[in-house]
């Protein structure tokens, strides 16, 4: 028998669900315990932020909101590995990565609170990142196009996109990794496999035993990672970014995690999944293992946890207030950003709406 090609998919994990190290070769960044504490703190603030968002929605102060509960290691791992000059194209729940890159909680609230200004990220490097992408997997091609721009201009920058397990079924995802392989583009495509695409489980998305192996078809480096282990996520991301930056091509990372919450606040996951499965998901969640590991290293404890939570609460309360104090945009804002300059024909419609406003006041 002649074999035309062979492949295998590595699985990367450093910390198990209890926070025990399963391998000794810790990456450099993980030897810096101060840095690991910083990562833990951002994961915790992401969780506090998420809880605050859901509370806002439940009290009618926010529209539909997509929670990131359980994705903290995956998202913070992605954001913390990227350099400022890189470009991020998220879907719509990767707050942990985005907070790291300068998106402000008030901007997230603004977007889900029905105001386009939430997409106008004020702080770099988020300011040059893409905004949330609601049409599934379409953002992967924006990242591929960005990577192509970097290659054409000879810039040492990398484009990173994230999608879910469901998103990996879409042609846009394949199109992005395919052109990245064909043109050797600096693209890192991350599948955050949280097992559920609203009500549809992972097994219905694909018959492939791993989603990572989809990258093999495109000729990309491909790896499956414990997405609840931030050391593994960060390490896989750093390696992928380095390969891309040095011209060695793109990667597909499958981060295996679990969506602990509903798809969005408009969803009720009890309709389609059992309690035991969610319990198992909580047993493997990302905060506990890192906390155990840091406590064992004597760099974290309950007092620090409570103090940081209190700080996060105060931070989020500030952000909520800033959001709630924002005035609704003037009605002309509907027209002002349709084109660089409002065309004469459209200006007539704008003037009509403004005349209605003036009549009302």
């Amino acid at each position, binding site marked *: 028998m002649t074999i035309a090609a062979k492949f295998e998919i590595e699985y990367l994990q450093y910390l198990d669900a209890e926070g025990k190290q399963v391998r000794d070769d810790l990456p450099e960044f993980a030897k810096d315990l101060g840095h690991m504490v910083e990562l833990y703190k951002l994961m915790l603030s992401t969780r506090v932020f998420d809880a605050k968002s859901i509370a806002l929605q439940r009290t009618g102060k926010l529209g539909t909101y997509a929670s990131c509960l359980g994705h903290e290691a995956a998202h913070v791992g992605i954001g913390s590995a990227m350099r400022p000059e890189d470009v991020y194209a998220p879907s719509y729940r990767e707050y942990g990565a985005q907070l790291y890159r300068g998106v402000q909680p008030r901007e997230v609230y603004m977007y889900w609170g029905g105001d*386009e200004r939430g*997409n106008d990220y004020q702080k770099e490097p988020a300011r040059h990142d893409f*905004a949330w992408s609601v049409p599934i997997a379409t953002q992967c091609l924006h990242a591929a196009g*960005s990577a*192509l721009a970097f290659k054409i201009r000879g810039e040492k920058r990398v484009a990173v996109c994230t999608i879910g397990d469901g998103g990996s079924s879409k042609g846009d995802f394949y199109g992005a990794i395919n052109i990245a392989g064909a043109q050797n583009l600096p693209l890192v495509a991350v599948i955050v496999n949280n097992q559920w695409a609203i009500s549809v489980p992972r097994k219905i998305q694909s018959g492939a035993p791993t989603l990572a192996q989809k990258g093999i078809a495109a000729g990309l480096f491909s790896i499956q990672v414990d997405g609840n282990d931030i050391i593994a996520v960060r390490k896989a991301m750093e390696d992928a970014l380095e390969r891309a930056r040095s011209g060695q091509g793109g990667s597909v990372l499958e981060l295996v995690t679990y969506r602990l919450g509903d798809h969005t606040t408009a969803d009720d996951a009890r309709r389609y999944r059992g309690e035991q499965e969610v319990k198992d998901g909580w047993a493997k969640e990302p905060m506990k293992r890192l906390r155990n590991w840091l406590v064992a290293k004597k760099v974290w404890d309950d007092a620090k946890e409570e103090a940081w939570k209190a700080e996060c609460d105060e931070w989020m309360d500030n952000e909520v207030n800033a959001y709630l104090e924002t005035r609704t945009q003037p009605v002309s804002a509907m027209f002002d950003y349709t084109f660089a300059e409002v065309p004469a024909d459209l200006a007539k419609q704008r003037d009509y709406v403004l005349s209605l406003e003036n009549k009302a006041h």
Partner: protein
Amino acid sequence: MAQITLIEAVTQALAYEMAHDPSVVVLGEDVGVNGGVFRATQGLQEKFGELRVLDTPLDETTIAGVTVGLAVQGMKPVAEAQFEGFIYPMMEQIACHAARMRNRTRGRLTVPAVWRAPWGGGIRAPEHHSEANEHLFTNIPGLRVVMPSSPARAYGLLLAAIRDPDPVMFFEPKRIYRQYKEEVPDDGEALPLDVCFVLRDGADVTIVTWGAQVKEALEAADALAAEGISAEVIDVATLTPLDFDTIAESVQKTGRCVIVHEAPKTAGFGAEIAARVAEECLYDLLAPVERVTGFDTHIPLFRLEMKYLPSVERVVDAAKRTLAAS
């Protein structure tokens, strides 16, 4: 100065802008070595290299989405859809991202991109190669829809489209790609993207059209002139945003309006123009508005396609009906 065809004017505009603006790149299927299936990008890869004239994988979704990404990073991509019948997979990227990027980010990110597509029927092409679907794009906010009908307008409008800070659909009527030649100076002069072109002055009836039908409209105007009827011909080369003022001015003068387009009648862009005429010029009208269009059927395969496309005779008949009415 050389006389060139419409398709050669497209090539000339691309070459001019690529030579003067390093951020302009061309991408699509077969645009590289082959120079495009109609030769619109002939010689460009030799001049500007494989990265700036990029043969993509055979996937329209990829072409459209990568174009959005390039444009957001400050490039000025000119993507080619090989035929307008293959443009449908691109529509999600165009409608959900390209056309709304500026709006949804309050101007933080923009998409200065052009999508070119050979458009329309009448060249005895296979199925899916002869569609007229500009009306599917004219209803998308934030998008410009442009269709030249002469070599000079192809050159000037394509330069304008590439330089425009917003996304532009640039439909090229392939039936008249090589219909005639004219002198087009390669001077980098763009045409405005927001005015209709009055191609012929007339007093009795206004014929409003665009794309390949400009040919039939002008021939109809000749035929009408031979019978003593003076027809004004307007080329709506920039469909959206629409310059209705030029059309209104003409209809107010002639009192009669015949709209000619190749796409199906119902909800074609002619319906919008007819509605605007009703809104703004009703009391100037001496006769009901006429529409001469494709039918509400799929364009037939090529044995019958000329029966589908508006003919000179149908345009002349419609114009005469408006004159018979009053």
